[in-house]
């Protein structure tokens, strides 16, 4: 009988030593189950490889400027007078990825609420392991209507103004990927060329 006031008497429950042994055994079993679940095998993922595009660049600013007349300058406060007034925007970019002849095109915009922060390219393409022909192109989308017109060969947008945008960046090559290998295409340290950054061993962390 459990509780207070009970006269000491023979109980139907197991003797204390047996109970202690059973409780230890049950506890060990419980902790072993926990230990096993602590290393539950992750469901196997596919052996697919990845072509990863990742870089960061300052977006090109497309500006249209005009010279202010003498009257307009005089109308401005002395400390705010300027000879030119410019309006503009940061342009979008087009990322073209071609793998074995299959092309995907994405548009990336400058980040930030005012779209005036760097452009980040960060995307993965899943491919089967093995050799692949890869081409990557990165070019600015320049047009007065703000989206999709491409700078023509003369460098003029559709307003007829000469606009020298940045030269498109391209990378072409063949990759031979093993299971789960990631081929990284990124900008070189000068930021002027696309390169493949492919290593089988990750660089060690900074010290």
């Amino acid at each position: 009988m459990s509780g207070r006031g009970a006269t000491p008497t023979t109980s139907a429950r197991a003797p204390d030593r047996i109970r202690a042994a059973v409780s230890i055994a049950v506890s060990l079993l419980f902790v072993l189950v926990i230990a096993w679940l602590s290393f539950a095998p992750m469901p196997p993922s596919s052996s697919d490889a990845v072509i990863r595009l990742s870089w960061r660049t300052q977006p090109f600013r497309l500006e249209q400027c005009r010279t202010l007349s003498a009257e307009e300058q005089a109308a401005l406060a002395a400390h705010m007078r300027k000879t030119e007034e410019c309006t503009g925007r940061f342009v979008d970019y087009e990322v073209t990825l071609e793998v074995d002849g299959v092309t995907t095109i994405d548009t990336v915009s400058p980040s930030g609420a005012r779209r005036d922060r760097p452009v980040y390219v960060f995307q993965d393409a899943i491919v089967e392991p093995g050799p692949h022909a890869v081409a990557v192109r990165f070019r600015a989308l320049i047009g007065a209507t703000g989206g999709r017109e491409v700078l023509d060969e003369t460098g003029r947008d559709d307003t007829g103004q000469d606009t020298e945008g940045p030269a498109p960046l391209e990378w072409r090559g063949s990759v031979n990927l093993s299971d789960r290998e990631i081929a990284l295409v990124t900008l070189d340290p000068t930021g002027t060329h696309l390169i493949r950054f492919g290593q089988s061993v990750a660089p060690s962390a900074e010290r």
Partner: protein
Amino acid sequence: MPASSSGLNGVTGLFQALGRRSLAHLDALFNRVYGWRYNPLYHTGALVVGCLVVLSVTGIYLLLFYRIGSPWASVERITSQPFTGRWIRTLHRYVSDVAVVAAVVHAFRMAVQDRAWGPRALAWVSGVVLFGVFLLCGWTGYVMVWDTQAQMLAMEGARLFDVLPIFSEPIGRTFVGEQAMPSAFFFTNLFAHIAIPVGLLLILWIHVSRLARTTLMPPRPLFRGMVAVLVVVSVAWPARLDPEADLLRVPSDFGVDVFYNFWLPLTRGAPAGGVWLVILALSALALSYPALTRRRGARAPVPSFVHPRHCTGCEQCYHDCPYEAISMIPRDDGRDGLVGFVDASRCVSCGICSGSCAPMGVGPDGRTGRDQLRDVKEFISRDAPGPLDVVLVACGRGAARGAAAASATAGAPGSFAGASVIEVSCAGSLHTSVIEYLVRAGAGGVMIASCPPRDCWNREGVAWLEARVYEGREAELQDRVDRRRVRIVHAAEFERASLTADIELFRAQVQALDRALSEGSIDIDTTCEPPAVSVAAEGL
């Protein structure tokens, strides 16, 4: 009659009924193995705190050897040391897993026992926050190792956060491998892993802020046993170290800790926005559980009330209340001294104050000491107990749950194992005058069947009852009552066989006592010395 525990929503009510039933079966099973005193299911909250203590000690030790400049290599060095590193690292990991299990069981118990709403809502909400923060701390801990599991955790976490308008650039770019992982990342992660437990202490303080006499640590034998078993398993089955993270290879062939990283296999490949929707939905459901289970209208429990005319200002109800819902305030009726005041926003209507008041001046309406005496008089009028009869006063949540209602007829009270049953909302609400009245009315014996002390739904009901019966705590059972005719037993909901055996044994003892009295062959000493050990003294 104890109030029903089902909530407003039928679904939550069904969940509570099914959950309580399954938990009660598990409690009974564990009581057979561990005994009620050291049943780990009754100490889940304290076990989490105990685990935090062990984690702090082992974590500080491991910190001495962890290097943010070479995280994986430093963990490898720790793991290569069998006596001074490997088992401690393993212990740290397994204890953290046990903490999650204990926390989940603790939350489940509170949820199905209807202890999450009203005055307990703050504890529930802070508990949900605690659990989330705990999982976050575990996330940082696994990332610290910088193995393949850590790589997957970091990249998946970055993918989920990149969909939110928080960061100025995709944080996933940190893990593309075009440059070495900055030490600042590991420093930030380590700082978070240390700072979060400090925040946990603050949330824990909020979690227990509305409880009187909080028990933060489990009983020493249970705690020592838990640590000993974990150490043994840590030595015998050390934690493995997965390969170092390689940012130019998709991680594979690694183990996932089910307790902290269960979400990893589920979110892989799923849209990040969809994952956030699921997280928000589950969080909202968890946080709104108090509102979903809140009793309304006629089923809302009535808070206790102090009758100023009867209150003598002895402060016993103030001391006994497990939820600090009673305070003593100056009188406004011209009498000297203080009078009790019940804060209805903190009162859960447990009725423990009813049992604490000698003049029977406080308690929920219908369950004060006076109401209990009235009810027992009616009980005796229907079926007066005889000198060989045992009357069972049963907590409505224990083994005799529902026995009174199930077996009662128009002319007779309910019974259990041949004993007439008086059901109370909590054993701690029983006024000792009821026990005396039953004995003086001719009952051979009065057995009070309570829940196991650490499973008392009102925390301290059993402890106060035993103190009132055996240790002279106000409102004490008078010395003139023969203690040999009074028994307090502990029986969880599905320990009916055990309670039946206890009743039969007590009945046999009462009958033997009656024979001895009738034969006049022994010198009766009607007062007994209480046993040396008390539930309250053990901190249970």
